[in-house]
């Protein structure tokens, strides 16, 4: 096989892998950052069980850990439970979706779990 | 040509016919992936599968392709492991085809999942008691072995080729026993539960694989205009006849054992005598196309020597084994489970009644697409890699050891 063929294949593969990224970039306007979401603190003025910075970074790990504990071991008194979140953060659109949309993650949680 | 030395070269691949073939196969593969995407985005209700028959055509196609892969690999190993040096010319093509068939089979299994996006889950959570989990490891190792084997052959490392050849044959036995065990180990369904399934799976794999190789070799050499010694195809035809005998023996033993005991009368009556599509596929497809007609063609001296008839027999076997795979997967699910022995059962969940399975358009495209994918990649590979021998003839200084010349 000639060198040209190899280069063509490599370029094609890179294009294939990068296609979703390019597609998204083109859809958003190339290198055009979406505005940062404006977050409002929930009314009531309560305090989260962990510092905000920690939660921002680690909430998914906490939830996954607790998820397995609940499903597999029937734990019904876990310290971190999305039910606790729901007591203050009552609206999913305000609390979850804003940031998830901003960073472009689509968690499957709410396909099955109900959060208004 | 020097003694025993085979020159491999890429094919030119610039004729309109070649491009047309690539386009057709590529379009069919795309259609297959398209229907897989439909299944993924819409849900499995667009297939013929139901809660009563949860496994449909994708699984049939998967185990069919896995079976075909065995024949290719064994043909590839004939020269290095079993000393049939006259087949050495084919070993590169055959081992590439084995790898491609297995890759396509794996894709067929994964895209059939309800959640194909969870492809990484099986790598991190393993259940060593599950035949699916074990087979996943066997299959991926098999693909690796095929490619290492190819690499060794390309670099002409004779000793390594021999070692890998042995490993490959051993591994192929594991892979095909494991695939049979997916069904054979299920005690809940009478038609699946059989210790004969793993060995009979190997036998059918060898017969269908050899038949496919005969066709692929003939047409590849024909379209590229290279020389193929017809005697080689005749010898493969002889092997095919032998494999058919083994398959027939397994089919006979399995069905006679089941039919003997009174508790199975209803089941065997349904499968063999009812005249519905399942018994038609059993008799016409599996027994007729897969065993009787090709065997008669191959052993009859008037037809067994003609390449044309050998091709017809091969095509029949390839179809017949597809029918056999269908008969393994589908009728076992169509028959109702015996939850209450000795009772007539009715419910609003089809308990106690014979279920129906009909293949939907999406599944047909899926099956066609994944089968085309194999040949699409094969045809492309022939152009880019030195897989094909310049000519395949039996060298006069190599003695005829197979003893099949008179057939």
């Amino acid at each position: 096989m000639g060198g040209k063929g190899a280069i063509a294949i490599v370029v094609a593969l890179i294009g294939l892998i990068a296609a979703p990224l390019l597609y998204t970039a083109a859809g958003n306007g190339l290198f055009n950052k979406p505005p940062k979401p404006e977050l409002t603190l929930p009314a009531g003025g309560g305090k989260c069980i962990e510092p905000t910075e920690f939660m921002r970074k680690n909430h998914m790990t906490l939830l996954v850990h607790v998820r397995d504990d609940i499903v597999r071991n029937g734990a019904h008194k876990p310290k971190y439970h999305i039910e606790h979140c729901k007591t203050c953060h009552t609206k999913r659109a305000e609390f979850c979706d804003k940031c998830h949309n901003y960073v472009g993650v689509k968690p499957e949680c709410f396909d099955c779990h109900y959060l208004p | 040509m020097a003694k025993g030395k085979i020159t491999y070269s890429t094919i030119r691949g610039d004729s309109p016919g070649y491009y047309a073939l690539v386009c057709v196969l590529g379009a069919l593969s795309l259609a297959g992936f398209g229907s897989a995407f439909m299944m993924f985005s819409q849900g499995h209700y667009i297939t013929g599968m139901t809660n009563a028959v949860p496994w449909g055509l994708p699984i049939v196609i998967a185990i069919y392709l896995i079976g075909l892969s065995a024949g290719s690999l064994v043909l590839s190993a004939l020269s290095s492991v079993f000393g049939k040096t006259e087949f050495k010319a084919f070993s590169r093509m055959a081992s590439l085809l084995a790898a491609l068939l297995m890759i396509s089979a794996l894709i067929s299994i994964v895209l059939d999942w309800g959640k194909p996006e969870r492809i990484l889950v099986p790598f991190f959570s393993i259940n060593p008691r599950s035949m699916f989990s074990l087979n996943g490891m066997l299959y991926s190792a098999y693909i690796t072995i095929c490619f290492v084997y190819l690499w060794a052959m390309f670099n002409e490392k004779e000793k390594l080729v021999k070692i890998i050849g042995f490993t490959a044959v051993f591994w192929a036995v594991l892979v095909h026993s494991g695939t049979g065990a997916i069904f054979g180990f299920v005690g809940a369904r009478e038609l699946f539960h059989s210790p004969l399934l793993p060995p009979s799976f190997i036998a059918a794999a060898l017969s269908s694989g050899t038949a496919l190789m005969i066709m692929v070799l003939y047409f590849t050499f024909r379209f590229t205009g290279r020389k193929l010694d017809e005697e080689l195809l005749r010898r493969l035809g002889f092997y095919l006849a032998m494999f058919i005998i083994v398959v027939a023996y397994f089919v006979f033993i399995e069905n006679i054992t089941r039919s003997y005991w009174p508790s199975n009368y209803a089941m065997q009556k349904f499968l063999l005598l009812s005249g519905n599509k399942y018994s038609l596929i059993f008799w016409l497809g599996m027994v007729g196309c897969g065993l009787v007609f090709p065997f008669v063609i191959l052993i009859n001296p008037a037809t067994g020597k003609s390449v044309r008839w050998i091709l017809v027999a091969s095509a029949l076997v390839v179809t017949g084994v597809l029918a056999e795979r269908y008969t393994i997967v589908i009728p076992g699910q169509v028959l109702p489970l015996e939850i209450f022995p000795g009772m007539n059962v009715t419910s609003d969940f089809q308990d106690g009644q014979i279920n129906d399975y009909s293949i939907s358009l999406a599944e047909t495209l899926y099956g066609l697409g994944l089968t085309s994918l194999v040949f699409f990649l094969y045809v492309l590979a022939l152009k880019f890699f030195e897989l094909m021998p310049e000519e395949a003839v039996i060298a006069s200084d190599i003695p005829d050891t197979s003893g099949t010349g008179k057939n």
Partner: protein
Amino acid sequence: MSELDRRIFLKLGAAAVIGTTLAPGITLFQAFAQDETEGRTSSKDRWGMVIDTNKCTADCTECTAACRTENNVPLFGDPRYDGHWIRKVTVTPKTDGAHSRSLPLLCNHCEHPPCQHVCPVAATFTREDGIVMIDKHRCIGCRYCMIACPYKARTFVFKNTEKWSNPDVPKRGKGVVEKCTFCAHRIDKGQIPSCVEACNKSGEKAMVFGNLNDPNSEIVQYIREHAPKGLREDLGLEPKVFYKGI
């Protein structure tokens, strides 16, 4: 830079790398160290059920209706795709056509569950208290368990459903397998499964639920007295749902 300095520099660098990779994990570990350990299932419990087919009548569907509402079991109006966690079955002996019985059929929560044995990703598991469950977060939807189950207790989610009938219990997205959980979420709260509750409240009082490991429980007394049978006991799966009168 002297040799010593270089060494110190390298060591510091390595420490920094290890620190940044491991620190988040360590913080989390500390967070979970304070996690409560009580409130989980224990092997002291062994949940089981007895169904008295002499009491169950053909026209009563309280248990199936209650299950559908409680667990968001999908109903598409097409019998091929509807979900069934518990279903009513009518059985008639082949020798005696007049003597037919109606009974509910659900997951038997076998002691040796074949569905768990065949699951390639260990998504099906047995809890400490003997309930066989599916981790739908892990299920890949290969449907091998449906092939292996001799009771046809499992159904596949062929389509997405839009609404929750009970928001406290998750529904299932398309592409996973679902089945009866003995209402594990209710058991964890100290309640009994919703089918049993419905049967006792507005049905024929044909179902008894309880702890098979507790010699004083109602179910153990009932089993001692009436010796009910499991379904297809010849398969050796040791089901934990027993039927009286078939």
